[in-house]
Every structure is written in structure tokens, then in C-alpha cells.
């Protein structure tokens, strides 16, 4: 049985409310989803909380998944949870939409202080990107999403996604070179 078929079976099991299937789903996706949250927040405690919230939400909403890429579906839910977290924290949606980058940097610096950890160099670089680009890059590499899936997820043309990721990677390269000097 190949991976796709196995995943299909696990998803069917989860839809039937099979606890074993849900545990297997956690085993398959926990590392990648945790990596996604960790790269965006730079905080282990917060990433643990968001990961727990994600899997409970997945079990609750699994019947809404029908066809298509399960990867895309799971990371869409993860992305929504991350954004909800920011919204809940700062309450004012309008403020979050317009000043999302500023809010995220403040949240991360606060979380890093509480978590008692120093984010590694890569997180520092990612934090310097604008919010949308940082999330697109993280979704691309941790969610293993194609550019087409990213465009569908964000509801923007594929060219926009390519251009944002391209610019983001260039910026990261510059930042890394600057920090090495």
C-alpha cells in the first residue's frame, strides 16, 4: 500500500471516529505542523498549544474534507488557527489586518521572553519578512504545498505567490549574507 492510499484509509478512519486512525494522523503530521507554528512564532510553548488546537479542530472538522490534497486542507486549517490566534490576542481585526507585521513582531518578542528561549537565527530572519511572505514560505517548505495550492489557499493569482516567495527568498539570502559578514 502506498502512502497516498494509507493516508486515505487513515482519513476514512478519522471520519468514522476511529481513535487509532486519529493517533496515526497525529504521528504523520505533528512534526511538520509543529515546525510550521514554530517558524512563525519562535516559541515552543505556544507552538505546543497551537498544535493541540489544530488536531482537535481537525478531528472536529474532518468530515468537511472531501476530495483534493489533504496536505492543503490540513495546512489551511493550521493557517487559520495561527491567524485566529493573532486575532484573539489583539481582538481588533482591523488593526490586525492593517498592522499585522507590527503585531506579529510584538507578539513574538513577548512570547520569546515568556518562553525563556532565544529564537535561532533563521527565525530572526523570517521575522524580518512581511507576514504574508513569511507564512507563504513556511507553508511552502513545511506544508509541502505546491505554488498552485498556495495560490488557492490565499485566493490570489499564482504569479503573485511566485513573486512574493521569490522576493522573500532573495531577502532572506541578503539577510543571511549580511549576518555572516
Amino acid at each position, binding site marked *: 500500500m502506498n502512502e497516498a492510499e494509507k493516508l486515505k484509509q487513515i482519513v476514512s478512519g478519522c471520519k468514522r471516529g476511529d481513535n487509532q486512525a486519529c493517533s496515526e494522523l497525529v504521528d504523520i503530521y505533528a512534526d511538520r505542523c509543529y515546525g510550521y507554528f*514554530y517558524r512563525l512564532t519562535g516559541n515552543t510553548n505556544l507552538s505546543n498549544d497551537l498544535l493541540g488546537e489544530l488536531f482537535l479542530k481537525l478531528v472536529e472538522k474532518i468530515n468537511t474534507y472531501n476530495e483534493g490534497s489533504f496536505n492543503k486542507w490540513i495546512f489551511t486549517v493550521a493557517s487559520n488557527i495561527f491567524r485566529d490566534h493573532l486575532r484573539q490576542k489583539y481582538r481588533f481585526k482591523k488593526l490586525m489586518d492593517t498592522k499585522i507585521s507590527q503585531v506579529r513582531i510584538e507578539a513574538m518578542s513577548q512570547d520569546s521572553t515568556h518562553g525563556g528561549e532565544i529564537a535561532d537565527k533563521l527565525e530572526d530572519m523570517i521575522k524580518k519578512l512581511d507576514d504574508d511572505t513569511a507564512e507563504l514560505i513556511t507553508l511552502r517548505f513545511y506544508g509541502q504545498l505546491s505554488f498552485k495550492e498556495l495560490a488557492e489557499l490565499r485566493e490570489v493569482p*499564482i504569479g503573485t505567490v511566485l513573486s512574493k516567495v521569490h522576493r522573500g527568498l532573495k531577502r532572506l539570502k541578503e539577510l*543571511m549574507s549580511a549576518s555572516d559578514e
Partner: protein
Amino acid sequence: MNDKNENLDELLSDFYDQHQSSEFKNDLNSFQDLLDANTAPRPSLQTIDKIKSAIANKLVLSQKRRRYNFVRKFAVAAVVLMIAIAGVKMVNRRPDGQIAEEGKAFAGNIFDEQQFSQTEIAVLTREVEQIEDSMLTIRLDEFDTYQSDSLFEIETELTEINGDFWKG
């Protein structure tokens, strides 16, 4: 095709020239190397166990809720079915054309069983007429809330009828 099921070369060639495409691909590969070299921490086993146990609890709760909903729906369906069967049996027991007559007789029997006297029926009829008059007044917008207490009267009459009727 890569592991994301996309043809990157073909995709990039639609948007970039050859030089830009190759630069973009290099940047993607370099970043992947960077991530491989700086792997993000993994969730602890304790966290994973906690999540699994929370999921198990959630599944038990939702199963209980599903069972409860099923039993409730089943009970309602059973009652509806019983009423429907009783109705069908009643209708089938009587030949066609007699149903209306049976209905009238049934209504008559109720009054017989209640054993209302002619006087009581006359009083009730009079009160119903009064209520109809009052309702007509209201419908014709002749009802003045400041000058009339018809609404209060209607309420009183209804209360009285209700009490008298059930006393028999």
C-alpha cells in the same frame, strides 16, 4: 515533477526568463538546505500524548452525543409513527363517505359526554358572540386603548370561558 506534484520548470518558464527561473530554483534549493541544516525542534512525546488523549476524550464525547441524538430522534420517530398508524387504522376501519359523518358524531359525543346543559351552552354561545364583536371592533380600528378596556374584557371573558369549560 517534484514531491509537491508540480512541474516547477514549466511553471517558472511561464512567468520568468531562463536566467530568473534558474535563480529562483537555486534560491528554493538553498532555502531547503538551510532548513535541513537548522531543523525546527520537534514536539515532545509528552505533547503528542496529551494531544492524543484529548482527541480520545473528544471522540468519546461526540459518540455519546451521537447516541443521545439518535435515541431522541428514534423516540420522536416512534411516536409519530404510532400516531400515523393509529390514524390510518381509524380511517381504514370506516367505509368511504362515512368519515365526515363520523367526525360530526364524534364532536357531538364530546358535548354529550361533557353533559352541558342548554343554559350553559347558551351562555357560552353568548360569550363567543361578544368576543367576536370585540374582535370586529379591533379589526375596524375603532378600538381606543385610552378610552376603552375592551381588551381587558376579552381577556376576562376568555379566562372565564376557559375555567367554565373545563369545569364542565
